[in-house]
């Protein structure tokens, strides 16, 4: 149970709550004196984690893996088996077709690879290459499974957010396909 929920249950005037070690640990990690890099500010500003409380973010960051890529280093290739969802902490990533043509270039505070967490036996539908020196924060399938076991509510929230992103991408793609179909029909009629 998070600090906020516990406080709601006890009431604002209740002083019987003992020292909360988790809260103290969180405050210490969020302080400028904490020498290890904390990703709290980075994730606080991300739209995907808007439903996460500060404590949820603190727990979530423990499941992340920091990976550094050099310029033009391959992150994953088209057809590779995919297990990871990446947040772009710094730098940029070029999503490319198998022939090398760029589809989109994603900058800081963007993310990609959410389908790998949701689909069994997922194969990457495109390649990802670091455009310059890039730092990615990855969360992988085994981490999500551990999250669902140790922090099920947090895990469910994260999966839900990933599903929402995917749903919006599918909706966008459907609209694109319909638009393209209409254009093709118009062109065929002209011909």
């Amino acid at each position, binding site marked *: 149970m998070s600090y906020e929920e516990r406080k709601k249950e006890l009431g604002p005037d209740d002083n019987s709550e003992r020292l909360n070690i988790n809260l103290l640990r969180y405050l210490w990690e969020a302080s400028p004196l904490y020498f290890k890099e904390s990703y709290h500010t980075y994730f606080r500003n991300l739209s995907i984690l808007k439903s996460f409380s500060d404590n949820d973010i603190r727990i979530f960051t423990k499941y992340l*893996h920091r990976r550094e890529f050099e310029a033009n280093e391959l992150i994953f290739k088209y*057809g590779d*088996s995919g297990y990871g969802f990446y947040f772009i902490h710094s730098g940029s990533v070029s999503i490319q077709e198998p022939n090398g043509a760029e589809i989109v270039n994603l900058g800081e505070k963007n993310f990609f690879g959410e389908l790998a967490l949701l689909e069994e036996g997922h194969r990457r539908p495109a390649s990802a290459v670091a455009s310059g020196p890039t730092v990615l924060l990855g969360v992988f399938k085994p981490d999500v499974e551990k999250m669902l076991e140790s922090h099920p509510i947090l895990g469910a929230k994260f999966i839900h957010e990933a599903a929402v992103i995917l749903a919006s991408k599918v909706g966008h793609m459907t609209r694109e396909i319909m638009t393209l179909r209409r254009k093709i029909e118009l062109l065929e009629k002209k011909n």
Partner: protein
Amino acid sequence: MVKIYLFFAVLISALAFIVSFPRLTLPLGFSYILYLMINPLTSKLLRGSNQQRIIYSLFFTACACLLVIPLVATLYNAETDFKQLLKHIPELRIKLQFKYIQFRELLLDKTGVKLSLDPVTYVMRNVESQGANLLSSIPSLVSSVLEWMLLVPLFLYFFFKESKTLKVKFMEFIPNSIFEKTYVLFSQFNTKFGEYIIAKFIEATILGSLVTLGLMLVGFPYPFILGIIAGVTNILPYVGPIIGFIPALAVALLSQNPDVSLLSATIIYLIANAVDMVLVFPLLVSKIVNLHPILVVVSVLAGGQIGGAVGMIVVIPMVAFIQLLFKEIYQDLNAQ
């Protein structure tokens, strides 16, 4: 590319180190297996509120205490059985020789073939010399046990304390191009290995208990030691139950007590193994590793050749992991 070569060079060096220094790596490996077995329990202990943690701790402490009582009773009775067995070894040797002479005469009478070798004497001489070797190696065995009693808890403590840090450092070392696959395979291996060992341990305990209870009910001699042997040998796939039955067969054939019935012992072993195959194995073990029976037999033989009894036990999850690895490589090649 350099990072990949460096990674594999370090991996090969680590494997060479493991093979070259078994005195250090065996207790380390054993501690790691214990860590994999206990870790799921500790994550349950750490989850939830303070009250829940207290309840979980009390529950597991109670289970551990309750397990000690039958364990001590089993060890005490097994020791008594073993002492009785040692007393009867000369008697067993004479009976075996007598049975062999009868068999030799029967064979000569029926087929005209004369067996000149005396396997009983040969086997008993080997057993005696091995026993003498075992006796002389007891001091070094005791020092190894003491070494393990010191090293295993120490390694286990550091696994629990530093496992996350070690994991992060190891992950940082893996090159980016193979990171995802390596991490997923490593996680799957850890989970499956720990689950397999726990499942085999539970299976062996259930089978051993069933055999012990059954043999006690029918008044068969040495029920505890036979139960322990049945439980331990059951860890070996396919051949284990047969090997586990051999001591009971020997005791039944050589005993002159009319209450000792081979048929009743056979029925008990069959029932215990049937319960194991129908209930315990499918529920606990088979869903963890999914291997063809022929592959299991070949792996067990190869594991026994390389690592003895320990090799026979750990080879199954290792082969399951290698199967996973090859499947992954094959799917990647197919996708290309």
